[in-house]
């Protein structure tokens, strides 16, 4: 199907594809020789060639490319030895129940070796099956790689899975490598004594990227290479504009701001994805405005936005609650708020006096928006009017929102301020 796609859309598709592909993003980690990638590859390859068992932990903060490195190593090894490696993947979030994990291991083993998997098998059957498979594969010189993501979640509870796995590796003639990936740097301390003794204490540590790394990552991700399938003139124009933007002070400020908040790769990727989505579709270039727009859309403060969306009556209720808190009432509920509201209306005679049901509806809207919440965890024994509530916004946020609200009556502002200076 021939589709006439314009050059900007093509470029955008290429860039977006790159940003969503973790292998491409972290491929820079492959380049130098002393990286974790090469160490892991050496480990697995040597255990394969020497027909021994091994286990290793990859530790590091989130978004550093641990899973990407594992994938890259596995891809490389699969290309080199296509038949001799089978991979079993487990995730601690999904499979932290031991029976579930055993079933999943059995299922994946059956899938790899074209056996039929019975869902009715019990946990003991699955364990026996796994041990048999390990033995068989060991005799046939095939390595089984177990990749355990969120390893620290497997270490909760009794650690039966880990123990049986590591024990099987030690006692049988098997060839298996266990690769654990975790974001907790002390994941190996969580292991029980018997499990830890069977675990080889190899750890590979990953660190967050530094500013130079981020700079290199930006160039790697956004600069188009000559062979991207786009017209050459467009590529040169685009690259030159982009390099000039990278050296622009505004852009550097924007990047610093982003990194101050969160310096992980995933945050940078989100920012770049948004900037690429705001690409100027007529010219096909990335202007600096798209980066700035992406930054401002990531900088929103949800509570301030919610506060701008409130009606006048809801603001009255918030100001009454604030006054009650200033009067140091330790706990208050809807009836006390109503008492305060009525006293304000009697004192100031505003036009905003409403019935109790209407005020209660506004109160429920505030609960929905999660600007206030109940202070107790008790169930439904009490009517909603009598349960203690508390404010979930600070007085500074409330003050700022009252200032920014153009339709706010002046008396509200006065009521709010009076508390400060009384």
């Amino acid at each position: 199907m021939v589709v006439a796609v314009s050059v900007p859309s093509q470029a955008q598709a290429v860039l977006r594809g790159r940003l969503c592909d973790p292998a491409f993003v972290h491929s820079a980690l492959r380049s130098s020789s002393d990286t974790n990638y090469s160490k892991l590859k050496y480990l697995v390859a040597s255990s394969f060639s020497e027909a021994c068992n091994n286990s290793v932990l990859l530790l590091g903060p989130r978004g550093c490319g641990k899973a990407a490195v594992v994938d890259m190593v596995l891809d490389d090894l699969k290309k080199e030895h296509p038949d001799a490696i089978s991979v079993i993947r487990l995730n601690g979030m999904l499979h932290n129940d031991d029976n579930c994990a055993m079933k999943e291991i059995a299922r994946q083993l059956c899938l790899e070796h074209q056996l039929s998997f019975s869902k009715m098998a019990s946990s003991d059957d699955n364990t026996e099956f796994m041990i048999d498979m390990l033995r068989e594969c060991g005799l046939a010189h095939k390595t089984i790689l177990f990749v355990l993501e969120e390893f620290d979640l497997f270490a909760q509870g009794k650690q039966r899975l880990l123990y049986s796995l590591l024990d099987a590796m030690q006692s049988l003639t098997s060839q298996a490598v266990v690769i654990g990936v975790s974001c907790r740097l002390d994941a190996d301390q969580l292991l029980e004594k018997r499990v830890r003794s069977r675990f080889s204490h190899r750890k590979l540590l990953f660190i967050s990227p530094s500013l130079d790394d981020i700079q290199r990552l930006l160039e790697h991700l956004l600069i188009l290479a000559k062979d991207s399938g786009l017209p050459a003139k467009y590529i040169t124009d685009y690259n030159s504009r982009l390099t000039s933007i990278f050296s622009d002070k505004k852009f550097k400020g924007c990047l610093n701001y982003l990194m101050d908040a969160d310096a992980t790769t995933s945050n940078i990727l989100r920012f770049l994805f948004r900037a690429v989505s705001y690409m100027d579709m007529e010219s096909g270039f990335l202007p600096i405005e798209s980066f700035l727009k992406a930054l401002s859309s990531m900088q929103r403060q949800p509570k301030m936005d919610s506060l701008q969306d409130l009606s006048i009556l809801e603001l009255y209720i918030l100001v009454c609650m604030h006054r009650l808190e200033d009067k140091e009432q330790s706990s208050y509920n809807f009836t006390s708020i109503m008492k305060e509201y009525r006293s304000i209306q009697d004192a100031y005679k505003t036009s905003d006096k409403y019935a109790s049901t209407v005020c209660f509806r506004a109160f429920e809207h505030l609960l929905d928006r999660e600007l206030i919440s109940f202070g107790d965890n008790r169930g439904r024994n009490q009517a909603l009017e009598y349960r203690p509530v508390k404010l979930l916004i600070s007085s500074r946020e409330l003050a700022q929102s009252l200032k920014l609200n153009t339709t706010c009556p002046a008396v509200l502002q006065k009521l709010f301020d009076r508390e400060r200076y009384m």
Partner: protein
Amino acid sequence: MSQPVTPRRATRSSAAYPASPTSPSGSRPKSTPRRQPVPTAAAKEEEGEHERSTVDVLLEALPGRRAQATDLLRLLAPAPALPLLLHGGAATGKTRALLLALRHVRPRPLRVAYAALRSLPSPRALFASLLTQLSPPSSSSASSRLRIPDKPSDFVAALRDALAGLSAQGEAVYLVFDNLEVVRSWDKGGQLLALLLHLYDLLRFPQVVLVYVSSATPDAYYSMTGSIEPNHIYFPDYTVDEVRDILMRVHPKPKLYSSFLSVALKPLFRVTRRVDELVAALEPLFRRYCEPLGDLKAVPDESIKRRLFEHIQPHLAVALNETFSVPTRTSVDECKDRSSGGKARSKSQFGSRDGLPTELEFHMSVSAKYLLLSAFLASRNPATLDAALFDSTGGSDNHRRKRKSSQASMNMKDTMAEEMLLKGPGTFPLERLLAIFQCITSVSEDYLGDVECPDSMMNGSGMTGLMPDVLLQLSTLCNSNFLSKSRSCPLEGSARYRSNIDEDLALKVARSVSFPLSKYIYRR
């Protein structure tokens, strides 16, 4: 032209604009797969022009949402895309904007699977809904054989299989999760929420785009499980002018309606900004507004406008104090009886205090009303006052209690009043309730005068004849939540009850049986 999948949901705003051609209607089938691939003639259109016209068409259907619509179109397509989270208050048009954008997005998505989490009761139902929407249509007859997974791991495996089957065709599949915030209150909701937000990492399919819609802000979803944080799009509430535009859009009488809105919208907007509540409040008001006009097609000039404004003014004041109006028999009669004495009757309907109706809007039997009043008094008054209030004559005797109170006792009474405000109505045992009930019904017997009664139940010790009824009434009142049963006292072991009604309702009930309630309420 072929349509992408249309989900079943009919939003309120879509019901409000029937004229708009792109709004989904109520009873479409759940998921119709694509009928034909995009014809090449359509694909040869100029891309830039196409995008502009797409945005314009979308903006026509979504007033006041220019920034959000452009963001949606940019961020949703083409695949691959990072997950997306739409957040904003209730009734701000998030779901509608998303579904319309998914129709207009280019390239056309292969499948849109929509999970309305608010209507799904459990995680298993969610899994079932998604898997049936993603399964190929040819196997719809065999869908009964589809085993619905219970555990999240099985679900992810089944989802992967279903998506592998679909994405072989190379086009985008969108998974939409609507009302994500309700998952937090499900059983084991935290785990399921972590799973849903982690799906992007778990599935690793470049053609799958995940979209979440939530009315809770994004900081409700930060957990320690390290999912990829989605891109946010915020939907602010509408401003007054935008609401006016929305309401004016499909009204058949624009000039009249715009003069009405210029009077009625701003005051109502101060109370609530939600479009659905405003529409519900404005509709009966508009009917009243048009009442004095003989010819509804007339374009109002200044004098007519002023007359209509004066007519609507008192009704507006009433409407501001109501959350919803239940048409009572008196108001229905008044509508029929507009010409004669309508104004006088409307004044009486407005009542004496703040324009609230003073009559009870529902029917209860007399014994139930007395039981309710005794429950209210039992909750409200401390037990020590019972002897003084309900003496043998059944009347309250205020004269003995008038004493000059000292400052300390007044402070104590203030703190007691504060406590009463905070703690709410008190609990009482069943015996106390029955005792008060007997007292006040014996009092009211004197007030009722002679009531013709064919059976001899009311003679002599008439009230013992009502006892079995009382216990039945008690359970009825508990079921309708006028009374609630609290934990029984561990020492005595008898059941304790608590009344849930407020003073306004109790006064209405008392007025309907002519019982002097205010004499008996302990006031501080």
